[in-house]
């Protein structure tokens, strides 16, 4: 029998803010242990939470970008459970009224259709809610240590409907979600810093069936590749169990990305009763139309919308847009260069190929690049006008990377300008024709390729600076006159 996988993802994303969710202490990564704390973070007796409005702004932004319905009121609940990394032994979260409902993440499916911006699918979301992160436990032989620096960091939980059907789709979902979050400045989504964490609910069912199978929750999938590998492994594991005649047990499993093995953490019987109730320390906050309008105005164009626009308006191929678009700064760079040059395709090629290669080689981030959009635009124009030739352009590009000078100045200083003196060119061409009457005869006899015989000597005479197109035109004109 054929089985199909049913996958839903719960993604935790740290929201980018200056201070914590409910106190004024800074959020930062890699600081000495327990230095980013205060009475609220440590849940000292008498401390009270105060909501960070910037965090709510960010989640509203995420919600708008993902097409969610934004709740009119932001309401806070307490989720009660004991764990040493949780200072209050309850987490301030949102239970029955998440700030964002519905919405979707658009994903790109593998296959040829994507080259034409087809093959996309919208994965519906159940909800997004805001909560606070916990501290970090470090276990060692001598005991366990707790670092509360992370505790209280604004965290949003993005829950998808179980609409993903493969490990590759889950991979595409996370990639797309991450890009949207980074685009909106909602989060940096650095998985190594724990800024994006993913749990997956996986079940299988006979292909074509509408019923849902027993789900298994996979935890600690700490890179996007591990998510893909972990889900693929879990689908194989479940399929093997069912094919042996066994049944899937509802449980939570831990997938180890290094070894590719998963093991059971706990079964359903150990499920918590979180005793949710509205947090009496926090008043509900009204999110009115003006608030939403203000945030909507800050939302950037979505990545796939931009990619479609680059494709349809500028005719930029997928191979280039798929490089330019995922990085918002790079795509802005490109659009500026495209606008200044009037030649989007040429600008796109220079940026996606030469610029990225040179930056990568030098280990320089785009923001520090000496080559800016006006440089690219000027280079494209020089090439277009025939003022310089391809080989010279590459030289100019390297020089720009070094010095940050505009291409015109480099061309002049290094004498890279193409030959455009037509009288001189006429003279060289005439000389070439005169020196090879046989080829002239061949050409006249209808052998078009015979014209190439003259070009070498013209180029030699021009020391490589002649525009090949112009050379070709001149030779044809003179041959026609003969």
């Amino acid at each position, binding site marked *: 029998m054929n089985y199909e996988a049913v996958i839903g993802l719960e993604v935790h994303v740290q929201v980018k803010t200056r201070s914590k969710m409910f106190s004024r202490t800074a959020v930062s990564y890699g600081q000495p242990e327990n230095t980013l704390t205060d*009475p609220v973070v*440590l*849940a*000292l*007796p*008498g*401390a*009270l*939470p*105060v*909501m960070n409005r910037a965090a709510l702004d960010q989640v509203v932004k995420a919600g708008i970008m993902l097409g969610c319905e934004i709740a009119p009121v932001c309401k806070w609940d*307490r989720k*009660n459970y*004991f764990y*040493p990394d949780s*200072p*209050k*032994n*309850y987490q301030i979260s949102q239970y029955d009224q998440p700030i964002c409902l519905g919405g979707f993440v658009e994903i790109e499916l593998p296959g040829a259709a994507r080259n034409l911006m087809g093959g996309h699918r919208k994965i519906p979301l159940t909800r997004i809610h805001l909560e606070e992160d916990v501290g970090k436990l470090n276990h060692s032989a001598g005991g*366990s240590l*707790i670092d509360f620096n992370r505790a209280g960091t604004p965290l949003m939980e993005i829950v998808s409907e179980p609409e993903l059907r493969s490990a590759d789709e889950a991979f595409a979902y996370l990639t797309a979600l991450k890009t949207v979050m980074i685009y909106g400045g909602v989060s940096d989504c650095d998985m190594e810093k724990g800024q994006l964490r993913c749990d997956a609910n996986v079940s299988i069912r006979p292909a074509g069936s509408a019923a849902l199978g027993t789900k298994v929750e996979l935890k600690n999938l700490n890179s996007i590749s591990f998510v893909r590998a972990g889900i693929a492994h879990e689908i194989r594991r479940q399929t093997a169990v069912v094919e042996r005649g066994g049944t899937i047990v509802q449980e939570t499993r831990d997938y180890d990305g290094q070894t590719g093995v998963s093991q059971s953490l706990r079964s359903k019987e150990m499920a918590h*009763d979180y*005793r*949710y*109730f509205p947090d*009496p*320390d*926090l*008043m509900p906050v009204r999110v009115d139309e003006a608030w939403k309008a203000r945030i909507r105005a800050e939302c950037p164009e979505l990545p796939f919308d931009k990619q479609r626009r680059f494709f349809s308006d500028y005719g930029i191929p997928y191979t280039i847009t798929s490089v330019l678009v995922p990085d918002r700064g790079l795509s802005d760079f490109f659009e500026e260069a495209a606008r200044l040059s009037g030649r989007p395709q040429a600008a796109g090629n220079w940026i996606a190929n030469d610029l990225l290669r040179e930056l990568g080689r030098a280990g320089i981030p785009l923001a520090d690049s000496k080559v800016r959009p006006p440089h690219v635009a000027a280079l494209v124009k020089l090439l277009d006008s025939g003022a310089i030739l391809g080989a010279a352009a590459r030289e100019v590009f390297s020089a720009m990377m070094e010095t940050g000078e505009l291409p015109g100045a480099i061309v002049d200083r290094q004498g890279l300008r193409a030959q455009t003196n037509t009288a001189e060119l006429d003279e060289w061409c005439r000389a070439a024709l005169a020196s090879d009457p046989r080829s002239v005869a061949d050409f006249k006899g209808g052998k078009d390729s015979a014209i190439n015989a003259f070009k070498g000597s013209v180029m030699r005479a021009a020391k490589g600076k002649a525009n090949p197109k112009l050379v070709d035109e001149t030779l044809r004109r003179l041959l026609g006159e003969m």
Partner: protein
Amino acid sequence: MMSSELFFKPITELAALLESGKTSSVELMRAFVGRTQAVDRRVQAFNSCDESDALAQARASDLRRAAGGAIGPLDGIPVGLKDVIAVAGQPLTASSRMLAGFVSPYDATVTRKLKEAGAICWGRLNLDEFAMGSSTENSATRTTGNPWDLDRVPGGSSGGSAAAVAAGEAPAALGSDTGGSIRQPAALCGVVGLKPTYGRVSRYGLIAFASSLDQIGPFARTVEDAAVALGAIAGHDPLDSTSFRSEVPDYRAELARRRGPWKLGIAREYFAEGLDPEVGAAVEAAIAHYRKLGCEIREVSLPHTKYAVAAYYIIATAECSSNLSRYDGIRYGHRSPAAADALDIYFKSRAEGFGAEVKRRIILGTYVLSSGYYDAYYLRAQKVRTLIRRDFLDAYREVDAILTPTSPTAAFKKGERAADPLAMYLSDIYTIGVNLAGLPGISIPCGFTRGKLPIGLQIIGKPFGEAEMLAIAHAYERDHDWNRQHPDLR
């Protein structure tokens, strides 16, 4: 000046003495230190006090005054603090073994405001553990006596604060009131106790019992002193989301401006069975006095009063079960030396650290929040709470304030109700509704029993109507001398 002349004087008189140079803050502080050393072995109001720190604060006040920079009526005046209000560098125990040895690294907002007003933070005052109780007998540190009869309780949970003021160990004190914890001990100890409107005073730095009910308020000898103290601590606080954004009136100035006569409500539900006849008679006499002052006395109906205690013990316990989960032995507070792992730290530390009443309430609160019971208990109790508030707001369309007894009885004997939690819970039957409705309430002395035990009159005001409520209380107090009588502790 003889120190014995100082410790029963109201703040307003002490401030005048400081102002005129007839005494200094250091002299004042020495008098209260001496008084406390003399009587607190019997009263047991203080969990701890830091004399040298208090004297240093007094010296600073005197220097400020000498330099012409005296701040106001509280400058140089000692104010006691219930041991649930954080003072940086001082112990903060909630009278619990769980927090034995804990020192707060930060000031509560009310502490900061008192300091900014020049007041001296004086001592840590005993209470029922985590403010859960009505007699201060649930304290894990000591049993406070009622200064009028040391064999009796001072009420609770702010029993230490009430007893300290009544015994002349401090001219004023702060307490907290979740279901009557300021007003009931004020009544039982014969002092003024004011619970502000929910949101009037910041809760930042107050150890939470039930967050939606807790309010900090003052104990004082006179209504005017209560007005001064309230003015110092009230106001919006960006550190407390439940504190209210509105101007704080000059409560003391308002006392003189607001002269009545008022329309005052009497609710039959507050004079029902269980009310001690002597208490009832004293309150009736107070009502008669208001009538004599030209006030119109009207019957009002508060029909949902009978559900108040039940709703209160669901909401308060639910919130406390969550609020107290931070006391886990991990980051601070008691950790059981017998604990072997993380789970064991929780179980053993909490089993050893919390007393019986606290455990009872945590268990009850955990139960009412449990999946499947939430709607039947917590949600329903919140609906009752809305109805109770509506009762009061309906009544306030006709009257300016409501008069009730503060407590159904005068101070009871130590141990008398300790074995019967329900009887103890009924001590707060007249005060709980005020917390559920979020209203301000004040208890003022209105007489004594034949056994010379104080009786309290409760005046319940409109939301943020503290100024009017204080003026009404002041009108009665002006014509009586109950607060000029003091317990004999020699």
